[in-house]
């Protein structure tokens, strides 16, 4: 998958998590800070997002420990092989 496709998957996964919580679909761009307060995401939602992305992309970039990222764009880069 390209970075843009991965970003689209991240956006879809976040929309799913929000909709499970009964919240409207957010707008996610490469610059959206995932935990910065723009989105109502807590650490367990983030945990779910990481799990969901592993299923969608087919691998887990955090196998050897967690890697820092702030924005959706930075997260997308982690899934580009």
């Amino acid at each position, binding site marked *: 998958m390209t970075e843009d496709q991965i970003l689209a998957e991240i956006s879809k996964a976040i929309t799913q998590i929000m909709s499970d*919580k009964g919240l409207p679909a957010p707008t996610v761009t490469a610059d959206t800070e995932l935990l910065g307060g723009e989105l109502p995401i807590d650490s*367990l939602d*983030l945990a779910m997002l990481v799990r969901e992305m592993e299923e969608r992309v087919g691998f887990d970039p955090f196998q050897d*420990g967690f890697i820092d990222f702030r924005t959706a764009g930075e997260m997308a880069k982690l899934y580009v092989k």
Partner: protein
Amino acid sequence: MNERGLALHVNAGAALVARGTDRLSRSDVHTRVNELAASFNARGVTRAMVVSDDPIDILRAIGAADATGADLFIAHTNLPTATIDEIAAQYGVQARIGETDTFIAVEAPAPSQRIYMMTSGTTGKPKIATHTLDALMSRARSSAKFSQTESKWLLTYQPTGFAGLQVQLTAVATHGVIVAPEQRTPGGFYAAARDNAVTQISGTPTFWRSFMMVARPEELALKQITLGGEAADQSTLDRLKAAFPAARITHMYASTEAGVVFAVHDGREGFPKAWLDTPPQGVALRIVDDLLQIKSANLMGGYLDQESQPLLNDGWLSTADRCEIVDDRVRILGRQDSTINVGGSKVYPLMVETFLLKQHGVLEARVFGVPNPVAGALVGAEIVFAPDQDHAEARARVLAACREGLASYQVPRVVKIVDQISVRESGKKGAS
């Protein structure tokens, strides 16, 4: 320090609680304690319950119970409201402290000056641990020995749980400040820490991993970083060290029954093997059948319910934490039982399975842990629906019921709808 109770009259002008734009001094909180104690006395209250996430409510309830000799239940706000109401009715609670205080005219037993705290139990019923304020405060003072005084603590834990209460009492005992975030999200925690110049943060490794995603380390002047609630891994310890080189980094192992068992300051995961021979903090440690066992002179008062009492063998208490020894170090590998540790909170699969099975249209359910790089583990569930159920509708309805009736960490996050639950030859539901 030779003080008893909260001793809020000592250093009365100093700040004690910061929440949003609210600033309360020790003396402000003391005034509220006295007001509440007066209304306990006027109404003859001997059993009270605090139901609030606000440290001011929790502290005034503790202070008033202490001043009047009343028993105090601290309702864990993770629990469903119905469960809290049941406990209040069962134990004859006469006063409910929170945003508004309400009084109920019921007969209560004679007070025993105890503090009762709740943890989620293996089934739907929470375990209720009994403590005394003196024992809790002496623990807070002894933990303060390895931290600085006049510090500002970020309240990252749920304020009504054991770790959260410990942070509040430590701030009271050391004349520090409790900084409560307005929003319990990583962004809310960071804003509160930055705006109040917090110096001490104690949180789970899961908290730290998400906090590091929003924090600008140069905006914070942390002196003490503490990790607890789940085993701290080397990569999280290394990242904290790199981001906050001036802070002392401590990871702790604590249990509800024995309090802080050990605290490690050397920045390496696990603890030194030498501690099995010479315990560092008054709690003896040994490993039997790969499980960590502890022995402390300072065990808590026990549980209200006999069935909850932990297994004791020659005064040793067995944890369910599996360990391995590698060279000079003992590492904690994880739970031996089926308990799932979600970001530092224990989840009992049976309890969640029971909850799922109560939902309309659910025929079978299996709950298990799914390893996760952020939270350590998430709750996974396989659900079998009755043939007449629309899967999408039923899934949404059951998950909504979970969010309503379970604590956030107990809600299944990885859900599969299946035709049948995998059953092993032993007859037990499939491996976790």
